[in-house]
């Protein structure tokens, strides 16, 4: 059984200008992890011309690059790389530079590495992919319009990080298979645009299982995102009729950008009886 999953590394606690060896993202003990995508190097290191580099290792500590390198923002891993249960993704960061939104206090960082793939469980089969009735698939999007009216750090001061807010969308009438998510924003005084560097999201499957190790930046998830070739979930997820699409949102905004109108579109197919 494969479950789409993203392991993330938040570089918030690192110091700009330093080099870190053997940073680690620990993996779950109950499943193998198949790594298929490494993204986000530009948000955690300086520009390549300024010496920003990364080195990533396999679970056997074999280097994926012959030397620390300035990999592209989005790098596919081909063939997929298996990490044993309970192992870790280890990596080095050379010349750290954390990306973030400036505030009146401490910046709200969106400095994150994204390790996307699937967790493979030994039980076989796929989770809740089957529908009990005969059906045909019809394209469908479940859209929700939200208002992000809280800042990334508590106002006034903007030093202490605020927590996530939980939301849900009901899946009505028919089973729904989620293929991708698009996000659109309108910050205070701004134009309607692709949601970028504004929120982090934690998505859950229909059984309430987390699909990320921590909330993930919008640009790693949104199929209409800037600068990244993002798409999630892979493989697609089925939400049965009567279930809910549950997700948490964290704000990455400075107080001056509030409120922000946010539209999330969960796009996929409905399984219509036939």
């Amino acid at each position, binding site marked *: 059984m*494969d479950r789409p999953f993203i392991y993330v590394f938040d570089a918030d606690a690192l110091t700009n200008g330093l080099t870190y060896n053997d940073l680690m993202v620990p993996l779950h003990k109950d499943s193998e992890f*198949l790594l*298929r*995508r490494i993204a986000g190097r530009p948000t955690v290191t300086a520009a*390549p*011309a300024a010496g920003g580099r990364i080195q990533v290792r*396999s679970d056997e500590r*074999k280097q*994926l*690059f*012959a*030397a*620390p*390198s*300035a*990999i*592209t923002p989005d790098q*596919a*891993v*081909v*063939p*997929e*790389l298996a990490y044993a249960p309970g192992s870790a993704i280890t990596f080095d960061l050379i010349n750290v530079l954390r990306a973030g939104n400036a505030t009146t206090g401490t910046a709200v960082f969106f400095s994150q590495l994204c390790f*996307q*793939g*699937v967790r493979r469980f030994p039980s076989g089969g*796929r989770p809740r*992919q*089957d*529908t009990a009735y*005969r*059906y*045909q*698939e019809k394209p469908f999007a479940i859209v929700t319009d939200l208002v992000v009216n809280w800042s990334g750090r508590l106002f006034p001061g903007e030093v202490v990080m605020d927590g996530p807010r939980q939301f849900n969308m009901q899946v009505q009438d028919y089973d729904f298979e989620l*293929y*991708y998510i698009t996000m659109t924003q309108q910050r205070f005084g701004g134009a309607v645009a692709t949601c970028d560097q504004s929120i982090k999201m934690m998505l859950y499957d229909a059984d309430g299982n987390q699909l990320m190790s921590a909330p993930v930046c919008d640009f790693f998830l949104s*199929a209409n995102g800037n600068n990244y*070739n993002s*798409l999630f*979930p*892979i*493989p*697609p997820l089925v939400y049965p009729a009567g279930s809910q699409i549950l997700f948490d949102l964290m704000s990455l905004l400075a107080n001056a950008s509030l409120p922000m109108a946010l539209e999330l579109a969960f796009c996929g197919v409905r*399984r219509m009886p036939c």
Partner: protein
Amino acid sequence: MGANVAVNPFAPPAYNGLVGGYPAGYVDVDFTYVYDVVLTAGQALRDQAVPIMSDADFEWRALVLAVATGVFSIRFSDSQGYYLSNGFLLSNNFLVATMPIPWPVSPGILFPMGGRIGIDITDLSAAPNTIELLFRGVKRYRLPKL
């Protein structure tokens, strides 16, 4: 019932998971060789080499221009000295506008363990040029015989 597909048709193939199409007795592991160089204005370097490690063969599948502070031209050769082009390629060939994208090498070129990727390179920017090239591909490990 619809097909019980395990792939997301909207996703790039690699994100759906690609297993290695390697020959029996071998296993492929994603790997990148890195070539770093700083050229002075107008400098031409000939017969540069990226040595291939002695633990596995390397199949080169794509080139990524990770860093270049100016324009340059380049020519590659394999371990037997076979040139991959009849002349020098401008670095702009590895960009879409200003964005580096993987420049595919198809079919992949196999470099034996202990071999070398040969490089001739010339600066065209008339200024110091810091360059990093990534040779994307796979290490092809030989599995032990049982």
